[in-house]
């Protein structure tokens, strides 16, 4: 399994009392899968994403990514692990406003200290998402959809094993959002990543091959989506 969660608990403190958000959640996601996690606001889906990505610490339980117990690592070790194996796409794009499009894409590569000239890869990725002529533009000079495409390119820069996407179309109109998701799926297939997508949009969620619905901190539903299965996608 690429992703495995065992007995995952997460509590927040509200008004001095513990507020459980996730309750003993168990989850397994196989490699190269495309999984969506849905649920209404407050259902715990973003919390789950944060825990699976090692961005937050659970109140209880464990998470294994690519066979590694990520909460047995230090914070810096988790960061390094993410840099090598995980990509992110955020709802609000989260590009560094002071860097150009190509520089934003280069960041994960430069953080890893990849040998050789990595700029061609960054340029190729941007061309892949249709921004080959906008390399030196700053985020402020790009539309929302274009910014999200840069974010996509950045997410795939390091050839991640796992890609986490948090409401990637949340700030976009429907048409642009469809375009982005299409690119996401395509890149995902080409790079053979495991894609976990969090969304409140049921229609978007159905594009995954597996839909996990959260309800009050637990998995309420775990069923196939309309997307192709892992084996079909891999040509197996």
């Amino acid at each position, binding site marked *: 399994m690429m992703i495995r969660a065992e007995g995952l608990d997460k509590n927040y403190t509200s008004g001095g009392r513990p507020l459980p958000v996730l309750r003993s959640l168990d989850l397994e996601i196989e490699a190269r899968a495309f999984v969506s996690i849905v649920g209404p606001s407050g259902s715990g889906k*973003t919390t789950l*994403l*944060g825990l699976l*990505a*090692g*961005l*937050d610490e659970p109140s209880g339980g464990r998470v294994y990514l690519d066979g590694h117990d990520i909460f047995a690592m230090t*914070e*810096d070790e988790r*960061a*390094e692990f*993410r*840099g*090598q194996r*995980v*990509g*992110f796409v*955020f709802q*609000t794009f*989260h590009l*560094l*406003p*002071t*860097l150009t499009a190509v*520089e934003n894409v280069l*960041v*994960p590569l*430069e*953080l*890893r*200290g990849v040998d050789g000239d990595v700029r061609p890869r960054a340029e190729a990725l941007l061309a892949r998402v249709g921004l080959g002529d906008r390399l030196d533009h700053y985020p402020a000079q790009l539309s929302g959809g274009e910014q999200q495409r840069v974010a996509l390119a*950045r997410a795939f820069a*390091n050839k991640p094993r796992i890609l986490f996407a*948090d409401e990637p179309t949340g700030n976009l109109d429907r048409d642009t959002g469809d375009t982005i998701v299409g690119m996401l799926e395509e890149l995902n297939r080409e790079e053979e990543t495991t894609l976990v997508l969090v969304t409140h949009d049921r229609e978007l969620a159905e594009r995954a091959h597996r839909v996990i619905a959260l309800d009050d901190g637990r998995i309420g539903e775990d069923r196939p989506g309309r997307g192709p299965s892992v084996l079909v996608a891999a040509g197996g």
Partner: protein
Amino acid sequence: MRSPLRARFALRLAVRESRHGLRRVGVYMASITLGVAALVSIHSFRDDFARSIQEEADVLMGANARLEDDVPFPPDVEAVLDSLRAADVPVARVTTASTMVYAPRSEVVRLFQVRSLEVGYPFYGEVRTEPEGRWGAHLEPGRVLVDPAVLSQMAVDVGDTLVIGRERLEIAATVDDLPTDVAYQTAIGPRIHVSPATMERAELLGFGSLARYEAYLAIPDVGERRELRETHEETFRAAGVRYRLAEEQARSLSNGVRFLGRFLGSVGVGARLLGGVGVAAAIHVYIREKRPGIAVLRCIGAGQSTAFLAYLIQAAWLGLLGAGAGAVLGVGLQEIMPVVLSDILPVEVETRLSPISIAAGLGIGVWVAVVFALIPLLQVRDVPPLAALRSDFEPPRRRLDIPRIVAYALMVASVVALCVLEAPDEEVGVAFAVALATATALIAGVGWGLARFTRRFFPRRASYPVRQGVSNLFRPQNQTISVTLALGLGAFVIGTIVQVESSLRDDLTVSFGAGQPNVLFFDIQTDQIDPLLDLLPADARAAAEVSPLVTSRIASINGRTPEELRAIEDRAERPEGWALRREYRNTYREDLGGAETVVAGRWWDGTPGVDDDTTVDAGGLARVSLEDDIARDLRVGLGDTITWNVAGMEVPSVVTSLRTVEWDRLEPNFFAILEPGVLEAAPQSILMVTRIPDADERARVQRSLVGAFPNVSALDFSRVQEAIDSVLSRVRQAVAVLGGFSALAGIIVLIGALATSSAQRLREGALLKTLGARRRQVLTVLFSEYLALGSLATASGLLLAVVAAALLVPNLFEIEYTLRVAPLLLIWLVVVTLTVVTGLAGSRELLRRPPLPVLREAPE
């Protein structure tokens, strides 16, 4: 991840970010610029001056060595001078005395210093006169040379006549540049240069006249002039004659400027520390704005140290930019300083680039920027990657850990080091650092208290825009405390100095108030008392107080000579050298003066001391009453014996009382008063004080003096007040410089604070306009905010200034403190006006831009 890798990415990120985001924080670096400019310019100038002084030492003295005393040289010293002349060593005598000078054409009479100069003086340097080439005219019979200020004060010109003593003399020329002078001295105490023969004919010097006797020597060889001192040291010491080398005088001149440099350097320290405060505030806000980006970096693989390093590099780079600009500015100021200070510099100062000062400025500027940036930079470590998903997520606040402790320790150590660097010694530096830290903490504390008070008690009935403006001081990420600190520190410095100066002025002015004597006559001979009294108006004659002055030196205390006393190792027991060495002008009288109080022992008539009424058995010795401070300096008390040397005769006495003296009251006050019946036959001159209220009458009396009593001088106290005012006006100039500098540093921090919060202010303004606020209302919000901010800052500083002055004035200056509200109000007005103008100028965009584009640009 390996360190070199982190550093490379961090450096790359820092370079890329510097293309944009540093403009706003760059303003804070201007504070670093100011502090570095002060350091570079002052240190460089000090070096230039010291070098120029040493190169010109001989010219500054006009000779290589000098002998000086307050009485004519005794025979054994004259013998030394004779032997030097016999050995072809050039010797030139200079005698300086004060005397009344009368100008018949303008009918002005004034007290001036008259100097008789022998041929040859000065041995070095060019003297410039107007008309040119007239140096030496004072040696011609019937002629004098004068300092230019004499012409203006006497309302005369070259060619006019001056009456000096018994002589009528023509002004041959003015001395525009005498290399041995510091120019401003001649404005305060201008001189008239005459020949020795003229001085003798004018009969200016009677017995006991206050005069200075100097002999200048041209001995180019350094070894020889030092050998002269070694050979005749005992002779000079026994005679009380001072022997000074040109290089020693040069060093003490340098020390004067060095002191001034240290004083200004302290202001520079303040500016550098304010710069540090500004850096800390700017970086704090900068990192808050970078939070989302930092969170993303943490998501995609950056460790805590990588992110921290990237922003540390940016802070260091900004520090270097600021320091670089400061070094350039400092070099420019270094070139200007000799021009600006030309009227008080004794030499022409040649400026040279000082690599050490520049390097120190750059190094310290970067260091301050980095050290003060460290603490806010540490919050980079606290940005959780989860913040990329949840922008409102705040992790639990980190407790004090080792990096934070180290950062705080570095900051404290740096502050102390900066203070010690500018101080004459470590103790003073540490004391200054503690004082600065205390003032800073108190201003911040008072500011915080006032802010809370304002928040709690601000009237709810005030209009919404005013309430909004005031409440903006407390908005999240506000800069209120740092601006309060910056402006408040400046207000504190200026307010304290202004209060101290006011109290000094009050104290010095009161002494000349109604009913007090306002004219003093001195160098009166005993047979001139009655004729002089006859010159005075009737009421002045009746009010005149006559005091004999008997010149004395201490021959022994309790049987021990001054040499034996100086050899005492225990400092507590050893008398102060200057008190043993000095020439005393003692008196004798029956009654206590109006400014005196017996505090210990008993006066001649048995009046007991207020603290101690011990009766001392004189045992047949003359009774003497000592002023209590001089008694302490001489380490003597009731019952101790002092033997006085009066014109070669020994007069033993016993201390039977101690007095306190109000020296600021211009009455004849004395360190030592002997009982009547002891010194009447001793050689003496007379001092007389009286009151002549009418200025014309005073002038008439002084004119009469010139012809009738050429050796008698009169001191009109109104002239003294002018001289004091002149000195105090220079203090005010220094205050203005300090004030301007501090205010500038404070305003720079203010500008930086406005710049870093401009985005937030812009959004708030856009929101208000969207909700219906008119332009005038938005303006009122801004005006109220800046008015409140400026008032808060100034009030904090001025409150503390009043407390500081109330402590300093009575304890350091030993005078009464008087609160002066008007100057404080003026400072408040100026600082608040500056704050409001700066703030409104920086908010022009808010008023100009329509709201929608601003709201669209709002970050998530």
